[in-house]
């Protein structure tokens, strides 16, 4: 039996003491996940690049800047309306690199397969990965496969890591939002999460909602071309939804935000599904959307460019960055009142990506 960790010399052990075991919330993308990172991983690994907590880390390499990112995919079910774990695994890491300002180049793949997993299911997943990689313009250059006994591993878990290069002059990051910035959203939110919900046991419903999984690097390149250094922050709102991303950026940049609820694009069916299940689309996971914080004078140009791209046709201006209430994201409700968009605690929906 391994020794329990010694919390006494950690900087702030208290929150972890509340949970002697890992709970699902630790993987939810909300406060619990953030605490695990802040109080366990960051202090242990201890370096500047990690502490920035961007979607990817940008590190100097000779004269270049290298971006590195990794993500693991444990989605259930493996195949869902609009995609599969394979597409998520490629697009997710490509997107983390792209929103950090990098041109995604190479991916590694680690697969953990369960004994007894059907070979043609694996074939489909691999095929999906290959197609996604081709579409994104990246190469999967190395990988590893492990098999675990039946009963461990839920079919298939995938980890992808990716590297890219950040062009000179590009500087984006969660701490760079400035008062006056306009907040753009590239399209409708909640599609991925509700697509998964629709096939989850006990909660199934008939719908045409599809996951929005997509590689955003092409779209993002267009935005940089149009708005250049006016782009300050980009983030793809996955687990925890747009709410989590907005809150993380507000905290990192120490700015406030005001969001217009009526401007947030949500597909009718996604809205209905959220009503049915008592969920708020702003907390639901996405896999093919990007939030862009851009200086006000370049906002219209950026928005126009988004709307011209097939992945950004529903793009909208959803709010702005303000000096007041730093760290807090406030929304104007549909009836003209205000409410706070708080950080989610644990998981709204487990095993979403």
């Amino acid at each position, binding site marked *: 039996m391994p020794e329990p960790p010694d919390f006494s010399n950690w900087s702030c052990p208290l929150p972890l003491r*509340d949970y002697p*075991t*890992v*709970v*699902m*919330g630790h993987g939810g993308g909300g*406060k*619990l996940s953030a605490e695990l990172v802040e109080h366990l991983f960051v202090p242990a690994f201890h370096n500047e690049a990690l502490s920035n907590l961007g979607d990817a880390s940008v590190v100097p390499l000779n004269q270049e800047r290298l971006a590195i990112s990794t993500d693991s995919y444990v989605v259930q079910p493996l195949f869902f309306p609009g995609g599969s774990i394979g597409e998520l695994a490629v697009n997710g890491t490509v997107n983390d690199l792209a929103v950090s300002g990098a041109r995604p180049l190479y991916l590694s793949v680690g697969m953990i397969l369960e004994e007894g997993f059907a070979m043609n299911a694996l074939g489909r997943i691999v095929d999906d990965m290959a197609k996604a990689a081709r579409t994104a313009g990246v190469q999967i250059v190395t990988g590893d496969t492990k098999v675990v006994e039946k009963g461990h591993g839920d079919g298939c878990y995938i980890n992808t890591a990716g590297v890219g290069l950040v062009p000179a002059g590009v500087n984006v990051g969660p701490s760079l939002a400035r008062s006056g910035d306009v907040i753009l959203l590239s399209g409708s939110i909640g599609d991925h999460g509700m697509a998964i919900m629709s096939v989850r046991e*006990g*909660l199934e419903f008939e719908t045409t909602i599809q996951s929005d999984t997509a590689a955003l690097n092409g779209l993002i390149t267009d935005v940089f071309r149009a708005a250049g250094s006016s782009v300050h922050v980009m983030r793809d709102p996955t687990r925890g939804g747009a709410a989590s991303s907005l809150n993380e950026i507000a905290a990192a940049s120490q700015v*406030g935000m*005001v969001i217009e609820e*009526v401007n947030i694009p949500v597909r*009718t069916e996604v*809205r*209905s599904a959220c*009503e049915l*299940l*008592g969920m708020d689309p702003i907390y639901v996971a996405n896999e093919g959307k990007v939030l862009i914080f851009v200086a006000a004078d370049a906002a219209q140009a950026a928005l126009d460019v988004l709307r011209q791209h097939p992945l950004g046709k529903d793009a909208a201006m959803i709010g702005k960055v303000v000096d*007041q*209430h730093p760290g*807090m994201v*406030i929304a104007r*409700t*549909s*009836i*003209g*009142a*205000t*409410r*706070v*968009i*708080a950080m989610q*605690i*644990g998981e709204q929906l487990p095993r979403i990506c």
Partner: protein
Amino acid sequence: MKYLDEFRNGETAQKLAAEIRRNTTRPWKIMEVCGGQTHSIIRNGIDQLLPPEIEMVHGPGCPVCVTPLEMIDQALAIASQPNVTFCSFGDMLRVPGSEKDLFRVRGDGGDVRIVYSPLDAVKLARQNPEREVVFFGVGFETTAPANAMAVYLAKQEGLRNFSALISHVLVPPAIAAIMSSPTNCIDAFLAAGHVCSVMGYRQYPELVERFHVPIVVTGFEPLDILEGIRRTVNQLEAGEARVENAYERIVTLEGNVTAQTLLQDVFEVVDRSWRGIGMIPASGWQLREAYRDFDASRRFSVRDIHTVESPLCHSGEVLQGILKPNQCPAFGKECTPRKPLGATMVSSEGACAAYYNYGRFISADQLAHA
């Protein structure tokens, strides 16, 4: 969505609010009974549109919040048993018992499942005859028909491995208890619209007679709530006290008679202790003798339950409308949704959760000027 979006129209909301402001000349305290209404008010900021004379007081309309601690601990003990598949609605998962919650039980290896409908639990029982499937049936009168049907069908089918842990509470006795309390200062009630869609509103004239307060049956969307408040204020300003139905498209005087028939068959009225409030006579339902075989509290003997409430928790006062959540000293400090001291901080109908999740640390006024 039809019959939803139209009742959220921003312009009309402003109009209704203007009407209310026009007609309000004195301070009034109006209690909305249902937690769903509390959430709608806080989430949409409806209270920010009201004139300062009107104070919305949040009532005990959160069945999860008022389920006795003993029953929560009992549920946790049952869920921890190895052959049990424990099913409940999603927001029960983080309700704190004396030591832990269902989330922890799941983390420790318990088979805890979130279901959308009690019929999903019945289905699980059918599909898994070797498991004991227990459904946690918590709710007001709105949810009782669903829970009754689950137990009724299980009995019809002879599903021996299904049972329900029932914690049903009733609204009219709660209103009476609040009005009878020496600290009461409520001038009028917004009755819970969906409770009334099941039960009708025949029970309310007696309460109006006894306590001389307007009771207006009200829905949940912003326009419904504003209309309910508008009619309430009109009565108050005119010195009237009667029952009014402001949710006519859904609620009738008689309610759903078919549902009431099955409810009579399956449940009987019982005295119930409301967590944080105390004993309210004839305020709950339990399974009748004919259905007791399906009563999980009978089927599972759970010993040694020592209930311990947090001494810092003021849920009871919040539920009675004596304290606003952000007036509780522990709010946002020792008590957050992450580590809740009481059920009101985690239930989707709990007032404390509404205040925390929609940012009511600062006053409504400060928020409006943000």
